[in-house]
């Protein structure tokens, strides 16, 4: 018998899980707080490591379920109440529905780079985030309109809000290292003469083809990787960004003026989801992300029977891992509904 599943979040995890559940014959309502599906991937111009357009992945996912499921856009979920083996799901605009199962595909928020005050995001004109740079790439006009000239020197700061106790996040966001390598290459493709510096703690090239991309960045594009954290950035009279950083391999302090400084913002748990997690009495972990019942055996189940999780709602993941996790969640939900 067809069961009703509410999927919260129409990012790639929600879309893929909904698609699989739909193909299994379940009735799906996909709820999204924005007015369009896609989440963060919709903003990403090209993806690592193969430079596939983000939109292409989204269209592929969206096409599979465009006509078959019910979308509810512009709805932020305020309450999920377990009730007699079902759930009552309520949105901020008063919209209510019942569900046999709920999937939290609620994703992540980008770390607010303003919290790293010493880097000057939101204060200095030419300090941007990795997400802002993707917007620039998507607009296709390069950096000249923003900078008023072709850039000569650009810096990427890794681990902004990740692996940073001061920022309250000790975990690794996983995707930023290779994103910086990809974005640095894209910059070099646009401006071959530009000097590009990446300031890193460790480079975590764990995925297939990531290491090759990193090697290519060094050998083909001459991108400079400097191990060391920025101590501060400031703005000079010309609007350049003066950065102070220690090269911890050479053991020397550096002061370099950049035309543009790109902060690789990490992933954080959305505050609304942290609140929801607490209301539902789910396991509280310091990083704010949802915790599966068993990381190996039951990676998509929560302590509340019928409430599932997929994608980055349970911690930073790549797109590939997110899609696999979504499929896994759909299978777990199907099994639960059969029982």
């Amino acid at each position, binding site marked *: 018998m067809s069961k009703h599943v509410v999927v919260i979040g129409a990012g790639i995890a929600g879309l893929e899980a909904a698609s699989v559940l739909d193909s299994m014959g379940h009735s799906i309502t996909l709820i999204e707080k924005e007015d369009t599906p896609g989440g963060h991937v919709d903003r990403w111009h090209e993806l690592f490591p193969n430079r596939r357009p983000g939109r292409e992945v989204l269209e592929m996912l969206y096409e599979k379920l465009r006509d078959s499921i019910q979308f509810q856009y512009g709805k932020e979920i305020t309450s999920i109440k377990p009730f007699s083996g079902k759930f009552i799901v309520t949105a901020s605009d008063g919209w209510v529905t019942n569900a046999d199962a709920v999937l939290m595909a609620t994703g992540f928020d980008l770390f607010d780079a303003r919290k790293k*005050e010493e880097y000057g995001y*939101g204060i200095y004109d030419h300090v941007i985030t990795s997400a802002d740079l993707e917007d620039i790439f998507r607009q296709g006009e390069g950096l000249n309109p923003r900078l008023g000239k072709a850039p000569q020197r650009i810096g990427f700061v890794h681990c902004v809000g990740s692996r940073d106790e001061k920022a309250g996040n000790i975990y690794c966001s996983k995707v930023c290292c290779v994103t910086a390598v990809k974005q640095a290459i894209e910059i070099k493709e646009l401006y071959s003469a530009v000097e590009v510096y990446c300031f890193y703690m460790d480079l975590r090239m764990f995925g297939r083809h990531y290491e090759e991309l990193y090697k290519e960045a060094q050998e083909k594009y001459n991108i400079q990787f400097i191990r060391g954290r920025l101590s*501060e950035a400031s703005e000079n009279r010309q609007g350049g960004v003066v950065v102070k950083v220690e090269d911890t391999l050479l053991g020397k302090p550096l002061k370099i003026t950049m035309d543009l400084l790109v902060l690789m913002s990490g992933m954080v748990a959305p505050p609304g989801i942290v609140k929801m997690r607490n209301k539902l009495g789910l396991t509280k972990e310091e990083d704010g992300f949802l915790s599966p019942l068993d990381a190996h055996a039951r990676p998509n189940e929560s302590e509340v029977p019928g409430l599932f999780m997929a994608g980055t709602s349970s911690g930073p993941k790549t797109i590939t891992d997110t899609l696999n996790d979504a499929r896994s969640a759909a299978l777990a939900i199907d099994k639960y509904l059969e029982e």
Partner: protein
Amino acid sequence: MKADGKKLVWKDYQKDIAEDHYFYARSCIRQNFFPGSEKAFTRILRDELGKDLCDNQHHTSCTGIGYHTDVVPFETTMTVVARQFALMNEAGYENYIASCITSFGLYTEIIETWKHFPETLEKTREFLFRATGREFTIPKNLAHASDVIYKFRNEIAAKARYRLVDKNTGLPLKVVEHIGCHYSKMFPHKGVGGAEYPYVLVGMIEAWGGEVIDYPERRHCCGFGFRQYAVQANRGFSIACSKKKFDSMEAYEPDLIITNCPGCPMFLDRWQYALSEMEGKTYGKNNRGIPVFTYEEVAGLVLGYDPWKLGLQVHQVPAEPLLDKIGIPYDPEAKFKGPNGEELGRPEAPSILKFYQE
């Protein structure tokens, strides 16, 4: 530069500053470096703002310099600070204000230590009692003296006879603000505006008509770092710090520098002389340097106090060009006279940096 971005940061770093009834702890060194500043502070609070201030003669050094140079153990420092608090209690006050930035930072550090390690607080109580027979309570409100002037900056502006404005052009003066490292770099939430974009002096400058310069080396230490100047072999590093700042701010053509630490105005002022002698280089126009002031001196100037009563004659970089620019009257002949009009003698003039009014 986006001013709105800074305002967002400032919103996150507001602190409670007591309204009245202050116990004032003076600095060990400020009265030698800038002898009129603390006097100006007590005058402004009592006479201009009508506040109650206890200026207690029995308090001692907080031992901050000794503590930061590893000469005085922390337990001793905590006991000395506990005695200051006991004096405050005995005088019937709850709100403690420190004239010195290092003292303020140290008091903050000690109170935080006691909060997180209550057994250390008990130990300090025991040490103090055994040594002096005194008991103490932690201040209800702890502030730096610049916090208090910041709090009443608009009241001072309302009474001001002069503004930080060029009298000829009507344009705001360009002001460099420099915060002492111990003000908020250790405990950002204890300083108005935080550590990266402190607002305490910016607020005063804006209220009194000036325009703040944000230059690349704004956050850099002035060179007063204790291990830099206290160890003779490191003094080259101290003067290099100051030079780095001057080189960075020079292009913005600042009219003056305002500071809130005992050491910063001393070093930013005196090292300009040393740099001129060592390198033949002066900053500011016509070999006159960039004048450096304490915030109390600037508050006193805008309120119309006599520059020589504020102690501006002991500055190495002459203040007169700035006084002329604002339109503050002064008697050039009185610069080196004592309070009773007696001639005190004239210091030797540097070879490059101009010292006398010419």
